[in-house]
């Protein structure tokens, strides 16, 4: 079964709204703010709504930078996305003046130093950027002060707390499994063959994803198709996209490969784009031998094969 590493990158930007923004900006002044709830108690970190009554909240209250651990877990082997690369605790901390638990890391050095009820204080990060990580971690209340002075770092474009925003990219990695049918198809492409799969309905699918979409049952046998097909749908692309290899405008088409019952998407070349039409007969052009891999990019594009157009009545169900 073929598989391939796959990187996913989400370039999120977070807009905070006024309450979260005020909290994060106050961290740059080494202050921790909470918000007064409907019942008069103070919630830290602050949310713009009361989690019980759902009422809108607005009264910000400064609380202490020391507090008490109400629960914790020791992380002996930190994960890549954890805030510390050495063993540490995640904990809920009730700051002095607040009645709720603040989730953060406690850099205690050793699990034996951790206990429910222990006193901890904020350890400010070297750079204060208006982000939750301005609190580098909490440390035991009697820990010595760091050997650095925290400095405030302003964003490139200054903005007020109520319109606070920051980049929050997220990256993670997958190992994508092609599946049985797709593996057969991709192996065929490496040998410059178009191999589809036939399902119980009798239909042949290319590319095959695993199921016979008509019946929902598993695809059964590989079927080698020819290299020719018919354009049954197309569009002319006028929009430049990043990484685009060919000049715009160009035609992209759904091609009904001879012997297949569904369509393959590919580019059309070898003909002025304005002459691309429904029923146009085309053949597959492969990438150069040294470029052939287990990839759909092996199909460079399709070009007219010189045969007369297929009558539209014969491809009616695909138009």
């Amino acid at each position, binding site marked *: 079964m073929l598989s391939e590493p796959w990187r996913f990158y989400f370039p999120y930007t977070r807009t905070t709204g006024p309450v979260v923004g005020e909290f994060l900006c106050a961290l740059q002044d080494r202050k921790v703010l909470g918000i007064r709830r409907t019942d008069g108690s103070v919630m830290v970190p602050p949310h713009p709504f009361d989690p019980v009554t759902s009422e809108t909240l607005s009264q910000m209250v400064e609380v202490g930078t020391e507090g008490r651990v*109400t629960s914790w877990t020791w992380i002996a082997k930190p994960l890549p996305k954890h805030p510390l690369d050495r063993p540490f605790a995640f904990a809920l901390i009730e700051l002095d003046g607040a009645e709720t638990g603040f989730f953060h890391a406690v850099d205690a050095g050793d699990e034996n130093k951790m206990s429910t009820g222990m006193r901890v204080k904020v350890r400010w990060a070297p750079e204060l950027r208006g982000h939750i990580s301005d609190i580098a971690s909490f440390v035991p209340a009697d820990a010595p002060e760091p050997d650095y002075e925290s400095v405030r770092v302003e964003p490139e474009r200054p903005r007020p707390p109520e319109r606070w925003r920051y980049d929050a990219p997220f990256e993670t990695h997958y190992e994508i499994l092609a*599946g049985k049918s797709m593996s057969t198809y991709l192996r065929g492409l490496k040998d410059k063959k178009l191999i589809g799969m036939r399902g119980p309905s009798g239909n042949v699918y290319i590319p095959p994803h695993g199921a016979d979409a008509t019946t929902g049952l598993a695809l059964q046998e590989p079927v080698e198709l020819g290299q020719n097909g018919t354009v049954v749908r197309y569009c002319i692309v006028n929009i430049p996209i990043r990484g685009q290899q060919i000049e715009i405008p160009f035609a992209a088409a759904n091609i009904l490969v001879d012997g297949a019952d569904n369509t393959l998407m590919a580019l059309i070349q070898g003909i002025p784009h304005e002459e691309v039409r429904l029923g146009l007969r085309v053949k597959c052009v492969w990438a150069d031998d040294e470029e052939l891999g287990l990839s759909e990019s092996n199909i460079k594009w399709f070009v007219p094969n010189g045969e007369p157009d297929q009558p539209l009545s014969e491809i009616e169900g695909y138009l």
Partner: protein
Amino acid sequence: MRDIAIVSFAQRCNQPDWREGNDIELLIEPINQALDAVGLTRQDIQFTTGGSNDFLAGQAFSFVRALDAVGVHPVRDDSHVEMDGAWALYEAWVNLQLGHADNALIWGLGKTSLGKMDELSILSMDPYYVAPLGADPDSVAAIQARTLIDAGKCSERALAEIAAARQAAAVKNPFISLDAAKSAEQIMEEPYLASPLRASTAARVTDGAAVVILAAGDEAKKLRDRPAWIRGIDHRTDAHPLGVRDLTDCPSARQAAERAGALGSKLDIAELHSAYAHEEVILRNALGLSDSTEINPSGGPLLANSVMATGLIRLGEAAQRIMSGEAERALAHASHGPCLQSNLVALLEGGN
């Protein structure tokens, strides 16, 4: 209200890193089996819906691919929730209640091994205060476990005993891959994963798929001698911020159970979506389960957390025992979100 029942259930694998096919290929077989068991074909189904997650699949609109396995001819009503399949079942139940269909096929699909669950789960946390710290599900659950221990509601030993009992049941379940069950003593010797949780008291994430068929009234009776009637079903949510909740309790689960009519009901079994051993303690208390109720006879999710299918499997496992006559009345529970934040409870019953 219409009488609506679970009439069929099938599941596949629940094993770590299943590599025999892609997500579509994982789903085909349980759909076939669930239909075959009641003599239906895909063409007989009037409404289809499923639960899955694009972040798990690493692909946008991955549920559209899954439709290939569900079968789309003839064209019918179809839906999808980006949640556990149990919530898709709730949607199907509502649809049947409204009279829009007389039967429905519900699927839940979790091919978790494609990506990194510990990293992807971070994206479900508060994006300003918690996610940037890389709060993974085991760490957050461990904090909840300690609140229970500190409150004197359980001990690490008690958690190990729960895990050992579920492993003993899981060994007998052909849909959970486990060679030998560990004893509580052996579990206590495991190193901490995130203290006080160990590998066996935390969920093992697996690849799996589940399918349930619902039918209303006479259609249900026609398909099964003994359908598992859904006497009540409800779902409720607690606050998202971890620090504002009493983590030793689960009010939303209790409320859902109350509204489903399951609270105080004499239950033979309860299938709980307890991905961590301590969640079973919280749910047992919140749902008021007595000692006479057998909990997670399937082995539960501890060794078979096929995320997005796990909750639907609870409904299916509970229904299976009613359809087979082993149980008369069962509670099925599904959960979503950190520390049992969101909960669904169904009361299932045999008889007419």
